[in-house]
């Protein structure tokens, strides 16, 4: 019979796709990353690319391990963490308060609307040099930059979340003669929380970006991971430079994952 002679390359049954079909994408993803790294390492070893401009992953890994043990590096890490955290806290407060005001006081919203749009059109990083002039090379100017960049998305999201509530629910509450405070706590606030957390996730990323941009602008004049990347670049110590870039990337990803976890735990009713 034909079916006895048929080769069966994969141990698959008709009902369940083979292992490769189910997990193939994982191998493809990991394979691509490893392949690129291997290509890079090879290109550097063969001098196809300049080993200073393209430090091989092996050297970057060594530099990374060395960096993590040094006080010097930890000082800069703390500086960036400090700026980012304070920038996020103040930016979040500013965004929440302004967003709430704009949501709950329609005349103010309508009056300030053109300026909100204008402010949106401005790439807020251009304020970084201004803050450096105003506040100096220390952490204050960087915190100001982080605040300027990260408060805006949260303000918009808070405003939208607190105002655009379910029409029927709002009418019901008004029909039941609920006070504005009751409407706020029982309808607007729960409705707004998913938006606020979404805005918070964006704000966290922007706060890190703001801190790094401010550090890049001030260059060697201050502490921070951005400054390290800049300085190592100028000193052509590219292994250390890339190591810091990797560390910053990992921190960024970790922060985003933490924000998403927080979002899942606190805004549980959206699932």
């Amino acid at each position, binding site marked *: 019979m034909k079916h006895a002679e048929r080769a069966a390359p994969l141990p698959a049954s008709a009902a369940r796709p083979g292992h490769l079909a189910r997990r*193939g*994408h994982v191998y*493809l*993803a990991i394979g*691509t990353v490893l392949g690129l790294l291997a290509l890079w390492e090879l290109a550097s070893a063969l001098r196809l690319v300049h080993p200073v*401009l393209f430090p091989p992953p092996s050297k970057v890994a060594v530099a990374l391990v060395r960096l993590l043990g040094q006080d010097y590096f930890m000082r800069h890490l703390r500086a960036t963490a400090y700026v980012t955290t304070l920038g996020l806290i103040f930016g979040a407060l500013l965004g929440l308060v302004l967003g709430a005001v704009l*949501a709950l006081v*329609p005349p103010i*919203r*309508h*009056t300030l*609307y*053109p*300026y*909100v*749009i*204008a402010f*949106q*059109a*401005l*790439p807020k*990083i*251009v*304020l*970084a*040099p*201004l803050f*450096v*002039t*105003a506040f100096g090379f220390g952490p204050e100017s960087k915190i100001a930059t982080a605040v300027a960049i990260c408060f805006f*998305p949260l303000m*918009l*999201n808070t*405003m*939208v979340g607190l*105002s*655009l*509530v379910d*029409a029927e629910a*709002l009418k019901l509450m008004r029909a039941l003669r609920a006070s504005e405070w009751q409407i706020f706590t029982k309808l607007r606030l729960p409705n707004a929380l998913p938006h606020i957390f979404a805005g918070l996730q964006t704000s966290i*990323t922007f706060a*890190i970006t703001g801190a*790094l*941009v401010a550090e*890049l*602008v001030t260059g060697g004049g201050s502490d921070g*991971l951005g400054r390290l*990347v*800049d300085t190592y*670049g100028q000193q052509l110590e590219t292994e250390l*430079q*890339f190591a*810091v*870039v990797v560390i*910053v*990337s990992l921190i*960024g*990803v970790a922060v*985003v*994952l933490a924000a998403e976890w927080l979002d899942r735990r606190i805004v549980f009713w959206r699932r």
Partner: protein
Amino acid sequence: MARPTELDDPTLAGLAGETPGGGDLPTRRERRYWPASLAVLVVFLATWQYASRSGMVHRIILPAPTDIAADVPFLVTDRDFLRHFTTTLWEIVGGFVFGSLVGLALGTALALSPLLRRAYLPLVTTFQATPRVILAPVVIAWFGFGAESKIVQAIILCFFPVFLNTLVGLSLTEENALKLMRSLGATRWQTFVKLRLPDALPTIFAGLKVALTFAMIGAIISEFVGAEYGLGYLLSRYNFELRITLVYALIVLLALLGLALYLLLDWLDRKLVFWRTTP
């Protein structure tokens, strides 16, 4: 007749698009607030003028609006100004166009191939989660101080919104429409070009609008870190020369540039996606 609630507020609906500059122009009902908006501006400028002139805030931190306006002619008549302006303009537009092409290509590829999507979407999303501004010094080391590095930085920052919106947009097509195409004997290409792509265009354009802002941010950040020409370079240089009036003038100029480019994109959006009934 129920009194209008904030739910009917078009300003909110526009801003709820959550894209930068996603607002609609105000409708007739809100236009009666224009006197109030104007009054706010006047009061703001007057307070600023007073605070600066009276010495309450140092001239270096906050120059008076009249001083800024007085220095604007100096800014624009500088013989290199046009070169700085066009350099930045080309950097932004170039970064935006190429970044959008990358986003479109990647988004389409991942939309059409479930395998590629399952493999690479997590990787791309992870890349998006990293603060890519940290790459600015590296990009400049690789591509030099010229416009190329700025365009690359802009691409790195702006491709993702286009990619994501393309991916999402292409999956929005209704099952029934797809079945109809199949029953009419349409090829995969025809189905893509005549059905899936038009269905995706509104979403893609929303992504393009976000990408424009990011392209601008990328170009300017890169100019801050290392450049010879450009409005961002100019801003940084004037700042460290303490010519703060010119810095403020450049900030206003850059905001206007951002607004102008956005309005251009919005016009293109309304022309190409002409069937849209709601924004």
